[in-house]
């Protein structure tokens, strides 16, 4: 995990995710941002897939939440940091939740581990009855 103090936030926008159509809006917003940044198509696809996984998770398990979309830079590198925050029931066993194929819902159980694979950096904090925060980071060309 990169030391957050070394990262400069250049622009930040917060979007709400309350229904399924918001997920689509979120991913297309992120796409717009990263296209301007010159991110490769592969990384664009990875990032928007990871964000749609996490946003959907938030919707299904956390009853919706917000996503902070940050354009960041570190030295000459540019990237995007996304902070997904919900006030849902939280995750009791994070280790289990990060296992591929484990799901409490009807999904495939690939969302969290998949998002970790697709992002350059991934951080999850959760407290039962308080909510979950997932932060992912993707550099434009890394």
């Amino acid at each position, binding site marked *: 995990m990169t030391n957050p103090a070394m990262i400069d936030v250049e622009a930040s926008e917060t979007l709400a995710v309350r229904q399924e159509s918001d997920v689509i809006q979120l991913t297309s917003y992120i796409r717009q941002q990263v296209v301007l940044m010159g991110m490769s198509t592969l990384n664009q*696809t990875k990032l928007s*897939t990871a964000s749609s996984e996490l946003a959907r998770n938030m919707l299904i398990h956390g009853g919706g939440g917000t996503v902070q979309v940050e354009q960041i830079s570190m030295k000459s590198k540019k990237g995007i940091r996304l902070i997904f925050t919900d006030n849902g029931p939280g995750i009791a066993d994070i280790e289990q939740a990060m296992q591929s194929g484990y799901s409490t819902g009807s999904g495939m159980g690939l969302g969290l581990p*998949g998002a970790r*694979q*697709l992002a350059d950096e991934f951080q999850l904090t959760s407290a039962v009855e308080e909510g979950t925060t997932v932060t992912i980071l993707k550099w434009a060309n890394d």
Partner: protein
Amino acid sequence: MSKSIIGTLSQKKNQILTLWMRNQLSDGGLRDDLMNNEDLRQQSAELLDCLFDTVTDDTLTAPDAPSLAPLIDQLTHVSMSRARQGFTPRETGTYIFSLKDALLEIFRHERKEDSEQLLGEILLISKFIDSLGIVTFETFIQGREEVIMRQTDEMTEISTPVVQIWDGILAMPLIGTLDSSRALVVMENLLQEIVRTGSGIAILDISGVPTVDSMVAQHLIKTVNATRLMGAECIISGIRPEIAQTIVHLGIDLSQVVTKSTLASALKHAFASMRIEVSKANSRSF
């Protein structure tokens, strides 16, 4: 002893309407291309009638009062129909706020002698009209949202076509993001067309789908399984390189599904499994 606010105003109804119309007609933003002056006058008169029928001095301070429901309904109707006709929110807002100018002008004449009372009453009327203005904004946006919803529905309908590209081969090019509701429409349309045409092979082309996350993949797998149950084979084509890599990173297992990179290679596969041979015609035979 001064008369009530509404009592004073309702006596001057015709004058108010005249003033209001004058305000509206003098406004630079008047859209006589969307609504002619006669209709505008009638709409304004109806709204004014409704206002004086329902509002009393007590409800002036309580715009949420149930007795005001007919007025709010009327206002909602006006605002909604304006949204559909293509008025901008500013134009609809100006419509209500120009009524305020008319009411205040009447009041200035009526309460010349008592400026203290005038001030208090002007504030009351002002607040009331402002809250009516807010109602028009809310419903205006609601009206627009309904338009958007309808368009979304239409797009879902037209963006899931099933085409028969060969005798016994169906193709379904998917364009845009797949959400749960659309995925259901896709599956339903495809299964129905399989029955209708008696096709043995269906090709689901996802070239136009920007992201394939685990939910989309799950829907695709379900669709493939459902077509199998109906005795048909389902091929997924149009898997772009970045989608392939993302699917692998996500850990989605599509090994049970026949996948191809292009629609052409899927068609080739379909021909092979149907034992159809397509060859260039021999020029000498013509």
